């Protein structure tokens, strides 16, 4: 689906032909792109083997250690810190120019140890908090769900730039945002849940924008991806988890409408961004795209709007991760939408066929206007 005629070789040739660079610069660019090539010596199969070996070793070591220390709750925090520091040391030692087996193993081991360290530390802090607050106290019941989120947020902030591995940045940020989402379930007041979810929703959208804003350091892209994934999970939660709101349909409607409104605004913004300038927006395809965006917002769910946004961003940026995420989510949210329609199967089949025919009519229009030709 993402067929981009421009590859690195084409780009360099275009720049040379356009007199933007000379031949010596072109060689430097080639070397620079080539230097970013993933490890030349390790194939995919080799990486899989190494990863499995390291994973089994780490999990078994962890299992062995926890059987020894399981009776000492406070030591979880200590071991958590120890693992985190050990991971930092291993990571620094493995950052060698040579990509050999030893460095590769050290790097992978450090990632797993960091992950285990953070889990132990968060778990240890939660257990310690329980001991200090007392199991039946109001303090415990109110704040326990937030302890993992806040502790993980703290460790993520500390290790984000010091540890510096993108996979750790991604997973840590993802878990921070998702633990905050899970904590929302424990809020008893539906009104406060709404305010909280709306705020979390806006934060996730704002952080996801890192991926499309220019001049943002690449270090923060894992945070952007984590926010994007969390946004998908939040939208999924808002769209499907009705048990919390089953007695408060008005509150549910508020959060749904809010999310649809924000995502429709984002979709309109993306269409304007793709168009590039006012002149392109005022053309017939531009106006139809905007009308389509408003209609989608009016009749569909936040999930469908989000999927369309992901497809547009992924295609525009030639970003396969975002594009395929949109492709995966689209049928899921479409299925939820039609499944939750409160009508008989007969009427649903009619709506499905009618929707399909409308989309095919749209395609016919594009072909008739020759908009699909370069």
């Amino acid at each position, binding site marked *: 689906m993402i067929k*981009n005629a421009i590859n690195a070789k084409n780009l360099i040739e275009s720049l040379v032909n356009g007199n933007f660079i000379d031949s010596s610069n072109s060689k430097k660019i080639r070397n620079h792109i080539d230097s970013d090539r993933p490890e030349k*010596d390790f194939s995919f199969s080799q990486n899989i083997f190494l990863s499995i*070996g390291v994973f*089994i070793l780490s999990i078994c070591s962890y299992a062995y250690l926890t059987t020894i220390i399981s009776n000492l709750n406070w030591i979880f925090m200590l071991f958590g810190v120890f693992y985190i520091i050990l991971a930092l040391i291993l990571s620094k030692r493995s950052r060698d120019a040579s990509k050999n087996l030893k460095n590769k193993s050290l790097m992978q081991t450090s990632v797993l140890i960091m992950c285990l360290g953070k889990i132990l530390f968060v778990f240890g802090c939660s257990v310690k908090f329980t001991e200090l607050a007392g199991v039946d106290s109001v303090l415990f019941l109110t704040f326990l769900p937030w302890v993992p989120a806040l502790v993980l947020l703290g460790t993520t902030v500390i290790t984000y730039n010091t540890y510096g591995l993108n996979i750790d940045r991604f997973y840590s940020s993802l878990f921070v945002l998702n633990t905050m989402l899970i904590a929302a379930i424990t809020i008893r007041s539906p009104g406060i849940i709404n305010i909280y979810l709306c705020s979390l929703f806006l934060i996730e959208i704002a952080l996801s924008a890192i991926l499309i804003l220019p001049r943002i350091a690449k270090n923060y892209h894992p945070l952007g991806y984590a926010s994007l994934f969390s946004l998908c999970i939040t939208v999924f939660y808002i769209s499907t988890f009705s048990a919390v709101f089953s007695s408060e349909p008005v509150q549910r409607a508020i959060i749904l409408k809010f999310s649809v409104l924000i995502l429709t605004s984002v979709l309109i913004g993306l269409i304007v961004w793709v168009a590039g300038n006012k002149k392109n927006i005022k053309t017939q395809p531009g106006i139809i795209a905007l009308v389509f965006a408003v209609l989608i917002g009016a009749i569909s769910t936040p999930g469908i709007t989000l999927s369309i946004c992901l497809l547009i961003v992924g295609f525009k940026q030639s970003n396969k991760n975002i594009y395929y995420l949109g492709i995966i989510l689209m049928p899921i949210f479409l299925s939820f939408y039609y499944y939750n329609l409160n009508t008989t*199967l007969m009427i649903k089949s*009619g709506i499905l066929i009618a929707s*399909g025919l409308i989309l095919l009519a749209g395609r016919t229009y594009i072909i008739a206007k020759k908009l699909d030709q370069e």
Partner: protein
Amino acid sequence: MAQKNVADTNSETFLESVAVDNDLIEDLFKHKLISDAARIYALNLISQSKNWGAWASRLLLIIGTTLILSGIICFFAFNWVKISPFMKLTSIQVALFGCISGSYFYGLQHSLGKMLLLSASVLIGVFLAVFGQIYQTGADAYTLFMMWAALMLPFVLISEFAAQWALWIVVCNIFLATYLPQIIMHQGEPLTYLALFNGIFWGLREYFSEKGLSWLQSRWTRYMLISAVLSCIMLPAYAFIDRIDFSILLQIFGLPQTRWILTKPTYFSLLSFILSIVIHSIFYVRYRFKLPDMHALAITAFSFCIVLELILYQIISTFIASGSLTMLIQSVITFLLFVFLFYMLRDTKRNNGGQA
């Protein structure tokens, strides 16, 4: 000189595989490899290369078609009880006839013709299932798959389409998996026979692929068959290992006794285990030395690791009572085993000229 040419070619090939996006352009600008004017030019270049109209057209086609098909399925699902048996069978037969006609019209050289023939093969199974539902004859489960495989066979033979063969082999596997335990054997390992069955097709695939049949050149057919053979033989091999009483090893240190006493395994499971070793050896020799293929070798090595792990676990847990210490020692051995396999794959890759 030859090595330099290979390196240059690899570099050019790599550059062709790198898709240019905003990130790459910004990265080049950040490292002062291109000017601001070049950056703007490059950004416009990638923006223009995107045909939004074609993209939207494809997307609307896929989603629109999917919605229509889903609607049709919902319609049938809703009215299934109300539809008469005659209508049910007739509609499937009409669809089947339509697919066969379409395949004939487009021809088997065209991919659409092949897809229609594949769809016809699927509809044969649907027809038999609906037929069985309407006329409750009390037949065994295997008869449906047996008839499906038999009726599909002419299509498979003329199709020259790997996916069609894959479907047929899957149906045959299901037939055998349901047939063998019921009719031929009341004990023993049907999976061993399945491994042999899939092994035959693996052999045929390799033979005809070497002869030059173009539609068999796709490697996924090799990997699918290797995975099928190895996964079928793994359970019988494990059944044999599980039945060996390794505690006899303790007596080796206490008493001058050197032979193992196999307390429970049957001769059939012993044969299955030997067959498992033979199969792994054949795949290893072929894909390491004769026809180097990293992925096939990796699948074989991974399967071998699992079998070896099971044996090692049985031995270690015999000697050591503590579960956690067993796990630790097992993990160290596992790690070493995987590192050894890592090096073996690296050597194969080098011998293969760096290609997978």
